[in-house]
């Protein structure tokens, strides 16, 4: 009989730090430049070139570690990780090994309403390798623009128990890093990617099974599919009485399967040793405190504040705290209309504003300004326009610098709440439709809809249906 297995999963995430220049040289980190145009003797690995550490990279790395609840190690060391690869010109990658700059963090995730705390072993700094293009007539091409780009590697504890948890964890790390201004969260351009260690053990067992490392997963969907495929593969092996081999595998999204890259026997022997070109990194208390301050509120803190103090729903708080730009926009509008219920801003942002919002890394471009939205919501709140009209006005001012107030005035969209005008309209309708009036009097309330509809038509939608209904009821019963 097939046994039930428990998956044990830990992720290693690589995230690019948002610096202007590389980790150890002044070359630009701009993405999408012509191949090998952002290179110099340091990142090309030319003899005699010496690395000098980028201060901002250190600061952003510290900020990332703090946001992931890690403690900062005052003195850390850069080590050389030695291996030969075409995209690694020096023959070694500068990374941190025995003494990383931060360790022992955690992150709370939520999967299907269940909260869980996932441990983080360490966060360390390292440089990226170059980019390769394959399939050019028996050759591969190497572009070293990316070589030397600053990364943090976030090593997670093997605390995750399903592919859904792994995807939630990956997302949570991405959101936090984008939130604190460390990473652009761009999976397509490779500035955020992960490897997954996956093993199975019989349910109830406490020791770990043999793990397989899945390399270079660059989408949330793939992380889930890759892990599911690997769990299925290992289950078949274990059910058949076989043993899982320790190896590195890659996921092919087209076949939906993982394939072996190399076995344990072929595993690299990296011969790490402290890089003699780089003195120890000393991260002082002052720098740590500056980055803690720069980090500001974390998404989880923003959500708690919004729910507890502003009365937003968990779902609304979740949606609006997905990007720091959303938070700034919401808070910006709130500051302009302090009297307005925050819930109303949140609702309108979710249903209308976010649809026209375009996220690009750290930036969000909105189709309206904070000022336009504040003005529009003020008109709505004052009853000058109806909810339906607010949406229309929103669509009209999107992508323009027009004032909602001016648009409303121009189009005569103010809600007709002038009882006199509505009354004369209704009296006229009542006189012309005696049959329908009789029905209402006989208790057929649904016929009232006919009158309300006629009034809305006559006022081009600018009447408040509720006011019309009330007035109609009064007129029908009195006459």
């Amino acid at each position, binding site marked *: 009989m097939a046994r039930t297995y428990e998956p044990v999963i830990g992720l290693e995430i690589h995230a690019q730090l948002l*610096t*202007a*220049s590389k980790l150890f*040289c*002044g*070359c*630009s*980190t*701009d993405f999408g430049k*012509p*191949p*090998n*145009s952002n*290179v*110099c*003797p340091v*990142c*090309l690995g030319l003899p005699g070139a010496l690395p*000098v*550490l*980028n*201060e*901002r*990279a*250190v600061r952003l790395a510290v900020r990332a570690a703090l946001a992931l609840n890690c403690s900062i190690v005052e003195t850390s*060391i*850069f080590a050389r990780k*030695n*291996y*030969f*690869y*075409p*995209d690694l010109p020096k023959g070694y990658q500068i990374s941190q090994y025995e003494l990383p700059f931060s360790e022992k963090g955690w992150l709370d995730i939520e999967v299907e309403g269940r909260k869980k705390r996932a441990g983080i072993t360490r966060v360390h700094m390292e440089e990226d*390798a170059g980019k*390769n*293009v*394959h*399939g*050019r007539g*028996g*050759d*591969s*091409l*190497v*572009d*070293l623009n990316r070589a030397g780009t600053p990364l943090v590697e976030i090593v997670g504890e093997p605390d995750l128990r399903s592919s859904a948890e792994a995807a939630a964890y990956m997302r949570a790390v991405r959101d936090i890093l984008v939130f604190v201004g460390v990473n652009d969260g761009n999976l397509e351009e490779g500035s955020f990617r992960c490897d997954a260690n996956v093993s199975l053990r019989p349910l109830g067992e406490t020791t770990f099974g043999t793990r397989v490392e899945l*390399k*270079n997963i660059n989408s949330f969907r793939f992380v889930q599919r890759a892990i599911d495929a690997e769990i299925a593969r290992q289950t078949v092996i274990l059910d058949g009485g076989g043993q899982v081999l320790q190896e*590195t595998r890659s996921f092919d999204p087209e076949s939906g399967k993982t394939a072996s*890259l*190399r076995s344990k026997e072929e595993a690299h*022997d990296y*011969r790490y040793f*402290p890089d*003699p070109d*780089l*003195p*120890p*990194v*000393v991260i002082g208390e002052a720098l740590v405190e500056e980055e803690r301050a720069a980090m500001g509120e974390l998404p989880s803190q923003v959500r708690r504040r919004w729910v507890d103090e502003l009365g937003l729903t968990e779902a609304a708080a979740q949606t609006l705290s997905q990007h720091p730009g959303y938070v700034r926009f919401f808070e910006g509008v709130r500051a302009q209309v302090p009297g307005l219920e925050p819930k109303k801003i949140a609702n309108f942002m979710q249903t209308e504003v976010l649809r026209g919002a375009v996220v690009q890394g750290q930036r969000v471009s909105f189709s309206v300004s904070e000022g336009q939205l504040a003005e529009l919501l003020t008109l709505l709140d004052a009853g000058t326009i109806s909810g339906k009209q607010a949406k229309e006005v929103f669509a009209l001012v999107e992508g323009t610098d027009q004032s909602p107030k001016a648009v409303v005035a121009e189009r005569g969209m103010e809600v007709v709440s002038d009882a006199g005008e509505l009354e004369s309209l209704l009296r006229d309708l009542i006189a012309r439709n005696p049959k329908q009036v009789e029905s209402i009097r006989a208790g057929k309330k649904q016929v009232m809809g006919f009158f309300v509809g006629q009034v809305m038509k006559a006022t081009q939608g600018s009447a408040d249906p509720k006011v019309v209904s009330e007035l109609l009821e009064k007129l029908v019963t009195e006459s």
Partner: protein
Amino acid sequence: MTITRDDVLRVATLARLDLDDDSLDELVHELDRIVGYVRKLDELDTSDVPPTTQVAVSSAPLRPDEARPGLPTEVALREAPRSTPEGFRVPAFVDET
């Protein structure tokens, strides 16, 4: 002898060095002497001494994050045996790291 032929062969493989028998024997001999020399340190009690990797500078100097031009692409590619405007040309390989 503390360094064996196998040790040297293993390091040679990792370093992609193809050694003939003569140079292998020579390296075994030389490395053994070097390691033996360093081993002199074992005569001292270093249990209270933190590992030291640097003596010249106590902490890494930091550089402001300012991008500046590197090498012109044609200069960067000039010494490569094979290159195209799209990159350094190398025998086909698979991304695996």
